[in-house]
């Protein structure tokens, strides 16, 4: 098994991108990633495209994206792990290089969510779980899935609606520093608490938006990475796990057990622990999800997620800065692009290229936590300068 490094990154502007098709949108990231890596794109053996689809017209997004970017001929596929499709693409590309199928691979994440109207998108996301048993008769929505967890967490640990609002305020604070973010405006706790309830206790400002966007990374084997760059960022481990389709089959609703398993696997592969993480991205599709992530990742003990946000422990200057790119909440959440976007962010942080939202890097280790559905899929990736 070869070690594998991220040697090139690309990221589109996130938002309502009615100006571009899926191929054009993916191209923005692919071009940057290829240029950043300094590789000939014809040498990229495998191109894995993370995309959930349903809301966009192209049924075969991988070949459409590859054709547009002149990548046809590479081994390719679209992979789906709901909102973790980007990390699934990263893992597939990583596995191809680590396993010796070529020295270069690319993971592309892309999603065009605004080709349908907002109600249709709400319908499609709500169906992502156990359609037959939990949607057909009961009309689940994505916020409802996380609201079931929020109610359980609030009841067991005393987490409050203000705590949830604090997560949104932090996201918008850093989103305001990210020129590629969908929302670049600060908000207040009062504004978040006063927003429309979507699935009690979650409100509009507890939720990520519908987003179009893309991100791409070029991965290289150790031998090639060292020739290409002086600042490779190594993939130290990708832990993954899953849980039941039906929420009724879960053991508890105060955390995501798949995320705990994925985190433990990633820490074990990377031979590090939560105390070694300089900076992280956590899957904050809803504010409660970020608080549960702190706990599931072992950044604090179970039930102390709200304490971390109250004390500013996940801001720059705190113990483990989280989501300094604005997170899904402010940066936006183009489903299949998010895991790759997070990997781009942590790579930039570890290179010291994150600009206004740069975290202090001490141990040279960063973490990506990317969840699909409501802990249906979980991926935790640990990246390092060494």
């Amino acid at each position: 098994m070869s070690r594998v490094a991220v040697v090139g990154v690309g990221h589109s502007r996130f938002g309502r991108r009615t100006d571009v098709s899926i191929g054009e949108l993916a191209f923005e990231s692919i071009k940057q990633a290829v240029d950043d890596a300094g590789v000939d794109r014809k040498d990229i053996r495998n191109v894995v495209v993370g995309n959930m689809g349903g809301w966009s017209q192209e049924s075969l997004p991988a070949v459409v994206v590859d054709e547009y970017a002149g990548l046809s001929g590479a081994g390719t596929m679209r992979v789906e792990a709901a909102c973790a499709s980007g990390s699934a693409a990263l893992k597939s590309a990583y596995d191809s290089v680590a396993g010796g199928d070529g020295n270069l691979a690319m993971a592309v994440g892309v999603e065009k969510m605004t080709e349908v109207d907002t109600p249709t998108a709400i319908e499609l996301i709500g169906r992502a779980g156990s359609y037959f048993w939990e949607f057909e008769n009961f009309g689940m929505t994505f916020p409802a899935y996380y609201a079931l967890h929020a109610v359980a967490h609030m009841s067991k640990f005393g987490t409050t609606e203000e705590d949830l609002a604090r997560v949104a305020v932090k996201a918008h604070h850093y989103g305001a520093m990210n020129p590629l973010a969908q929302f670049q405006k600060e908000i207040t706790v009062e504004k978040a608490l006063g927003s429309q309830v979507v699935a009690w206790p979650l409100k509009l400002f507890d939720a990520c938006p519908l987003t179009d966007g893309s991100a791409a990374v070029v991965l290289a084997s150790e031998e090639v990475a060292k020739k290409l760059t002086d600042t490779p960022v190594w993939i130290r481990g990708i832990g993954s796990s899953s849980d039941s389709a039906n929420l009724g089959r879960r053991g508890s609703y105060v955390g995501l057990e798949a995320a705990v398993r994925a985190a433990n696997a990633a820490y074990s592969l990377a031979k590090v622990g939560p105390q070694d993480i300089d900076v992280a991205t956590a899957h904050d599709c809803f504010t409660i999800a970020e608080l549960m992530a702190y706990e599931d990742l072992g950044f604090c003990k179970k039930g102390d997620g709200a304490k971390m946000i109250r004390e500013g422990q996940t801001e720059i200057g705190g113990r483990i800065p989280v989501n300094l790119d604005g997170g899904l909440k402010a940066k936006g959440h183009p489903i299949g692009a998010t895991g790759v976007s997070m990997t781009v962010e942590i790579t930039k942080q570890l290179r010291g290229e994150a600009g206004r939202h740069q975290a202090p890097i001490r141990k040279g280790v960063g973490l990506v936590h990317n969840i699909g559905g409501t802990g249906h899929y979980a991926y935790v990736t640990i990246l390092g300068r060494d």
Partner: protein
Amino acid sequence: MSEEPMLHSRRALTLRFDLPVSKTKEFWDSLRSGKFVTTRCTKCGSVSFPPQSDCPQCMGSEHEWVDLGRDATLVTFTYASVRPPSFASSDPYIIAIGEFSGGVKVLAWLERAKQDEVKQGMKLKIMARVSSEGNPFYVFEPA
């Protein structure tokens, strides 16, 4: 940005799915007669909900149907004020997860309850309903 030139596709597609229920027919038939049943593997004894004819614990395919009774306890809930468009004709609804004795948990609407009276640990009973299209389904009500 919404003023970008746009081609509004003329090729509309309506998808309506036919969902197989032959292996869970007993569940739906029982529901019509007011009973809430599920599968128990006759090899390893594990009870599954949703019911399934093949056991996820031991992969055995022999099973029997067991009555779960009516009584459950509320584990968690939400009030879905924003609904999918295919539920536009429904009033906003409470979605609850209830746990039966023996540990089976079921997600369903909680009807005939006011949101501010819903509490974790409250006693529920599961009730059969028939949709306007004639399909049986189930909801919780306060016990």
